[in-house]
């Protein structure tokens, strides 16, 4: 840890004023609380090299500012030097003033509140998470689509939700390191990702005409929230979820994923658990990112089937069924039988059964069913569903067009299984969405990506939590790692020399249950970057023959 240079403060001359002295005392008081933080920092620094990397860069700035602020206070010289030594993470102070300049209206916070209460253990744990587990590198590559920082990243809006409930919008960073540094400084409890703008979001106020600063690109996003399923969920409601109702999400993902791939030809779709009761989809294909609001709205509406008021008939679709819907029904059929009829038993109560009857097209059939169900209370939904067909065969429903009944049944299946989207998220280019790998503040769960090939294996109640990760890393020992690494070496055909390096550079997340999720994310990002690069290369090749140099510069 580099110490600040005491002589650097010497040029300070002049008379101390009472106010300035007070300020100094305040700072001294602050520094004492900072001490604890230091210790944690130091520990962290020992465990991981990465932490050290950022320190030196930040340090001189901090010194500079402290000096500037205290210009003319000589009496306090000693104290101040002490502050500087202790206040290694004092980066805050400097950035704090920088922040005040640029974000006066979007970022409303009281200066005195700014130094985070270091006694708050939850924030300390969060700091460890951001320092040691958060996959900065892959996040950067994911948003940047290339190893070298491009405008895709530089002009991207980040929005940070601080602990004092302030939201800093329009933050942007030229490199992944700066983003990391800012996050560690502010310790946001939530990071949201916005669109790529035509210019750097931080400069947005310098543009006079409104067309110079407009959102240009963003992943196409979808949001599925289980609260929207409350009228057909019998196991949980509101923010609660269990494995039973999680199935609704699973089938929604299947339908959406298939349609986005087959119908719209998108390939890079990242599904992310939102931490509590839903999932987000990030469609990252270049073509999807470039969609305008009109097209986004059209696409979102394409997936809007369960509309209408709650309580009434909620599915109104044209016949013949659009190919997308008939395929969706094929996908959903089995889920309807198992996950809805058997597991949820949606028509258990008389009211719910009545609502179902309302959708049966024939009056006679409806009455016959009602009579039958009234005579056997507690009849399971599976049987009720079967009753519809059984009774339709009898003469109770003479004159009923079998096609009408089929249509009605299809509507019912769709109502109970088809994805229910929060459409606002998908419609607007400039809608912000919570970043993957953020910790959900309510549950402490990490917003991990979901592998679409193992949807049924995903258990939302079993994803890594912040607390769990810290415990895991504490429990991890060198020997475990060595064994694991050794195993890895045996598995791969890599040489021995490389393997020893690997052991040294083993990332913290690799030592925890976060590993499969980050690996999944990494492979997703790699595939995306590969596609992106090929597209670029192809374009270059079309433009001129001088491709080689370009390719090299991208592919270092």
């Amino acid at each position, binding site marked *: 840890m580099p110490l600040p240079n005491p002589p650097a403060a010497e040029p300070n001359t002049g008379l101390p004023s009472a106010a300035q002295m007070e300020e100094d005392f305040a700072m001294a008081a602050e520094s004492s609380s900072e001490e604890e933080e230091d210790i944690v920092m130091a520990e962290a620094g020992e465990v991981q090299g990465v932490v050290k990397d950022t320190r030196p860069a930040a340090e001189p700035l901090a010194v500079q500012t402290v000096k500037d602020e205290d210009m003319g206070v000589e009496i306090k010289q000693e104290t101040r030097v002490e502050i500087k030594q202790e206040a290694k993470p004092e980066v805050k102070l400097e950035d704090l003033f920088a922040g005040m300049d640029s974000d006066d209206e979007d970022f409303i916070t009281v200066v005195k509140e700014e130094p985070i209460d270091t006694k708050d253990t939850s924030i300390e744990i969060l700091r460890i998470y951001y320092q040691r587990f958060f996959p900065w590198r892959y996040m950067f590559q994911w948003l940047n689509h290339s190893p070298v920082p491009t405008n895709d990243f530089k002009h991207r809006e980040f929005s940070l939700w601080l602990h004092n409930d302030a939201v800093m919008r329009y933050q942007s960073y030229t490199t992944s390191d700066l983003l990391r540094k800012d996050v560690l400084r502010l310790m946001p409890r939530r990071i949201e990702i916005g669109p790529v703008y035509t210019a750097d979001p931080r400069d947005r106020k310098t543009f006079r005409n409104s067309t110079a600063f407009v959102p240009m690109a963003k992943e196409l996003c979808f949001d599925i929230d289980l609260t929207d399923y409350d009228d057909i969920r019998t196991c949980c409601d509101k923010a609660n979820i269990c494995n039973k109702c999680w199935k609704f999400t699973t089938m929604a993902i299947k339908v959406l994923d298939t349609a986005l791939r087959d119908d719209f*030809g998108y390939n890079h779709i990242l599904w992310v658990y939102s931490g509590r009761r839903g999932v987000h989809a990030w469609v990252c294909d270049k073509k999807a990112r470039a969609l305008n609001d009109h097209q986004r709205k059209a696409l979102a509406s*394409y997936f809007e089937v369960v509309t209408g008021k709650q309580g009434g008939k909620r599915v109104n679709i044209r016949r013949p069924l659009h190919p997308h819907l008939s395929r969706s029904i094929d996908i959903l059929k089995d889920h309807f039988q198992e996950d809805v009829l058997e597991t949820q038993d949606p028509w258990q109560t008389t009211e719910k059964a009545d609502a179902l009857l309302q959708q049966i097209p024939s009056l006679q059939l409806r009455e016959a069913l009602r009579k039958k169900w009234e005579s056997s209370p507690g009849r399971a939904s599976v049987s009720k569903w079967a009753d519809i067909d059984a009774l339709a065969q009898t003469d109770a429903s003479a004159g009923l067009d079998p096609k009408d009944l089929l249509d009605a049944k299809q509507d019912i299946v769709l109502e109970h299984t088809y994805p229910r989207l929060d459409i606002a998220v998908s419609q607007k280019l400039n809608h912000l969405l919570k970043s993957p790998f953020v910790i959900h503040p309510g549950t402490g769960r990490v917003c991990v990506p979901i592998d679409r090939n193992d949807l049924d294996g995903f258990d939302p109640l079993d994803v890594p939590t912040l607390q769990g990760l810290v415990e895991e890393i504490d429990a991890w020992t060198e020997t475990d790692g060595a064994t694991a690494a050794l195993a890895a070496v045996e598995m791969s055909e890599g040489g021995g020399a490389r393997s020893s390096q690997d052991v040294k550079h083993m990332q913290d997340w690799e030592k925890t249950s976060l590993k499969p999720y980050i690996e999944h994310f990494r492979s997703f990002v790699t595939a995306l970057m590969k596609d992106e690069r090929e597209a670029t290369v192809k374009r270059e090749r079309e433009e001129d023959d001088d491709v080689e140099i370009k390719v090299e510069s991208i592919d270092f």
Partner: protein
Amino acid sequence: MNRIDIKKRNVDHRKKQFAGPAYKETQYPHRLNFYATPPTADITLEQFEQWAINRLRVLAELEACSFRNKTPAETALHMKPLLDKYLPLDATSSNSSELHLQRQRDHYSHFILRLAFASTEDLRRRFARVETMLFRLRFQTDDSRERAAFVSGLNLDWEPVSDAEKRELAPQLATTIGFGYGKRAQQVLDEDWCKVDWTRVPDLVEARKVYVKAGKAYVPGREQQSMVLNAYTKRLAQALELTARALPRLDEDDRLAPILDHLSKNFVAPDASYTGSGAAIEGAEITARNMDNLSQHFPMCMTHLHRSLRRDAHLKHFGRLQYTLFLKGIGLNLEECLVFWRSGFSKITDDTFNKEYRYNVRHVYGDVGGDSNRRSGGYSPYSCQKILTEHAPGPGDAHGCPYRHFSLENLTTLLRASGVGDRAVLQGVKEDKDSQKFHMACNRVFEHLHKTEMKRAKEEGVMTAAQLETIVHPNEYFKRSYLLKNMDGGKSQKEKGDVKMEG
């Protein structure tokens, strides 16, 4: 070869500096035109102006049709005589000797109006909208074979779907043209499918009216019209944007600029008589003092503003704006207008009035403000369209269109207070309001209030049928009402007593 190619060609400027560009005579193989290439041949200044005015007449009428919520069929019927008169365009098959001239006029007038209407965002949008309406009208009336030839010549980047692919996708495609369960392969094969990026037809995708596969939408022939129209609107909007940028470099100060300026002004207010002082009605005493009396000729929107002003001795911003412009439109001059507002705002001091309101009134009249404001004489009176669509009134506001922005109860109260008690009329107004035909409601009330005079006017032939057409401007309402009620001085004086304002 067109102008763009000429510019792009790499010529040695020393050799070519004074060489005139060699333009090829423009050919018009199709009746319809996407107006991709600007005209290059010479025309006289008279032609320049006349052709543009003729087209403008058609466009203004088209816009009026949309204001009146006419159905496409009604519009087509209404426009036919006008189109035949001002902008005839015969099919290629007609073998008319006028064919080339007609198409040339169409071509030139379009580009002249582009110049005239490229200057502001508002004008550009309106121009693009009405031009699209005109295009749609012509597209629909075009001979189907010629239309197909035109569309194929557009090079819209459509990929036709091969028969093999049609057959393969028949079950899916069938559903989008209404054949579901039977999978009627023949219909699918007969239909003219084309394949485009789905992003080109978001509306069709949104409504699930097309089959989408791997990012391509399969559009059946009948939906292709909307795609052509979209393409037309989009290209026109882009072209207008470019024109707007080129406009300042148009070195045409005294020859074309006045004509263009004049044209665009006419378009701002479709009825030319409301752009300036020319609106004043001869013999009418348009003064601040006489306003209470004149207000009997006001349409409901202005009546309501007038009463609110008298009741509260105040009006909020948009109310003042709408009312001031109307008063300006009926010929109240600035001095009188200031007197009117000063006396209207009776509860405030002179000082407050001068500080807070005086400037706005003067600005509206073009007495103060930026160069362009003063040169153009301030703002134009609001048309019904503007009142209907812009700045919907909030609580405490008195502006807007009562037929649109009032609840039915309030509207009925207002109408009764203005002497409209007839049940049939009120019922008619209710129906018009329900079907969003606010103009119809307003005109219905007008006809009711002036039925005897209108009858007489028709009998005596004082006013032509054109003068008794649907009103789409509050000032037109006033003018017509005033003229009708004052066909001969004495009689109208008596009637004034009947519908006296309470203020």
